[in-house]
């Protein structure tokens, strides 16, 4: 198996077999994190620039740890202390950094399409660590990896994705990736937060929370942002909590070995009852753990493929 593209911008760039190859590779890398000495020399001499134009805890740390465990040289560019605040354009910033011969850029940007734009002006590999409301491909891969650890197959699983779908890059990448693997996806949330142009037969909008959760094999809950009230998407957090929160009661409708995921950060008792998390019914920490393995795999596949 081989992967020829230099970048990972969209989950749509990956075929079904590409996805499985990334997951298989990630499984191997997961072992490294379980060793006493969590480091291999695989990427010695590679330079990777992590540029986060937007705040991040999980993803940023996860990429950095992945790089360090692979022995790459990692630089984190903090945007608030960069020339960007002096008004340097995105392309000038990248072209200048490109002159320093990095092997890869890891980009988180608040604008959709920014990693794609960057990938077109640099020879280095570009990994999308989340762009605007567009995509978060490594999150999708770590979600798929986590589901595979609990379920033999993804084909024909009923997967409910609940919450602010329309603003969620996680949802968009998950929908694309999981439907590629044959899952039946049911979306639910206020209609104001649902996508309105779906062109896939495996993706449906559920008529109610109950319908979405009923006999679901996997439930992916999404974070709702308080800011959504400002643009009329929801009336209030209280109302969201009353009608769109996953509760223990609703959860009873799901398949009995249902797997619950959440990309984080969680608003406890807004989109999901704190008790569901406290009682260990979610795989949130598996997701975080697998995030490192998936990102190691991505870096390995993209960088080694190009220079072998």
């Amino acid at each position, binding site marked *: 198996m081989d992967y020829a593209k230099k970048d990972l911008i969209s989950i749509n760039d990956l075929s079904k077999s590409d996805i499985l190859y990334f997951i298989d590779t990630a499984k191997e890398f997961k072992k490294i994190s379980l060793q006493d000495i969590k480091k291999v020399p695989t990427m010695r001499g590679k330079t990777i620039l992590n540029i986060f134009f937007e705040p991040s805890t999980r993803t940023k740390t996860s990429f950095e740890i992945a790089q360090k465990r692979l022995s790459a040289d990692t630089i984190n560019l903090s945007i608030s202390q960069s020339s960007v605040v002096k008004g340097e354009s995105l392309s000038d910033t990248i072209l200048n950094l490109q002159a320093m011969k990095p092997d890869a850029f890891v980009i988180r940007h608040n604008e959709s399409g920014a990693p794609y734009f960057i990938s077109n002006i640099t020879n280095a590999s570009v990994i999308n660590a989340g762009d605007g409301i567009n995509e978060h491909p490594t999150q999708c891969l770590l979600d798929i990896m986590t589901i595979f650890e609990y379920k033999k197959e993804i084909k024909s699983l009923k997967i409910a994705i609940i919450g602010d779908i329309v603003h969620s890059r996680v949802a968009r990448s998950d929908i694309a990736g999981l439907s590629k693997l044959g899952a039946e996806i049911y979306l639910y949330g206020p*209609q104001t937060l649902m996508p309105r142009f779906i062109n896939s037969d495996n993706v449906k909008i559920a008529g109610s929370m109950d319908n979405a959760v009923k006999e679901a094999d996997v439930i992916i809950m999404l974070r709702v942002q308080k800011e959504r009230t400002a643009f*009329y998407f929801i*009336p*209030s957090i*209280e109302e969201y909590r*009353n009608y769109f929160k996953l509760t223990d009661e609703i959860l009873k409708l799901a398949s009995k070995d249902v797997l619950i995921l959440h990309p984080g950060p969680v608003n406890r008792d807004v989109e999901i009852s704190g008790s569901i998390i406290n009682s260990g019914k979610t795989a949130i920490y598996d997701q975080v753990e697998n995030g490192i393995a998936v990102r190691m795999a991505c870096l390995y596949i993209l960088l080694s493929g190009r220079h072998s």
Partner: protein
Amino acid sequence: MEKLLIKNGIVVDPFTNTQVKRDVYIENGLIKDIKNETVGAKDINIINAYNLFVLPGLIDMHVHLREPGFEYKETIKTGMEAAIAGGFTSICCMPNSNPVNDCKEVNSFIINKAKSFNLCNVFTIGAISSGNKGLNLANIGDLKNSGAVAISDDGMPVEDSSLMARALLYAKTFDIPVISHSEDIKLRGKGVINEGFVSHKLGVNGIPSVAEEIAIFRDIKLAEYFKAPLHIAHVSTKGSVELIKMAKNNGMDITFETCPHYFSITEESLLSYNTNAKMNPPLRRQEDVDAIKNALREGLFDVIASDHAPHSEDEKNTTLDEAPFGIIGLETSLALTLGLYHEKYLSMIDIANLMSYNPAKILKLQNRGAIINGNAGDITIINPEKKWTYKKENIKSLSKNSPFINKSFKGAAMYVIINGKFFKL
């Protein structure tokens, strides 16, 4: 066991689209099929409805009760009494009370208070935006859950198109209908009556008819684009009728309402600066009245509602500029509509559709709007030939702001039966 038999009436049922002479039986508040043992049973109340029309209980889906907050204009109780006097078994009250009905507490207050009187049915319409201010969505899920049958900012338009769009989508999530007061309020400006020769003659600021039409067009387009149901309240102009045709031709899930004053009188009623003829939208020209009447005959309208808007005599006893918009209508709505029956614009079945079946359907009122087995025992019995005069001293509503005082009418409700309990008028 309460039993009521309505004998010998002409039963007009929109659900089966029939108008036949038959009896209607109500037991324990519900309409029941007549069985052999019913006839001649003991302790049964009998209403002789010979030569009268028996319609499913009339529903006025656009009423302003002024409680809480403006009890000097109308209370829940006086509004209910006016409704019964006018032949209505159910009314739906708009949320612009004080506080605005934008939360479950106010909503429950109105519902519980109305229930305590055991008069007519009162259904509540909650707010689209908090405080009807147009700045953020009200807790629409809570409103629905606590019993509201629709949401509206009536009295004020939802000016911000993005708020209206989100309201349509969010309401769809809860399967609760949205009622639009469609008006370009900036274009209304300081206008107080229709803009035209009358406003020119009186020297007062006019409200251009396009202020209504622009907003109706916007709302039709939003409902179409977002594939959301919508009800447009109080349509008053010829231009708006053209928009209804457009919407109906496209087969959209949009319903339209007009009010009796828009098909009965014109802006000429204001020539003496009569503040009791000031309402919003305003009375229009004769050609608008004709267009509304023709549209009713063609079946373009879904609903006739009164837009009953009580204001005290003191508030109306001033200039056109200062007087508040609105007239009462609960006690004249049926008689004015029966005027169109006499003019052969509407049949009795049409009236049953416009004033009962369609409102029940639009608002998803369970088991109302039709005379069928199992439905609520809500009936209005009408004598279209009954002559009477609307006298100020007989008005049940607490407010008296009507341009129809001292008008003679032909046609009235004789009995109102609400959940099996009958009121002789």
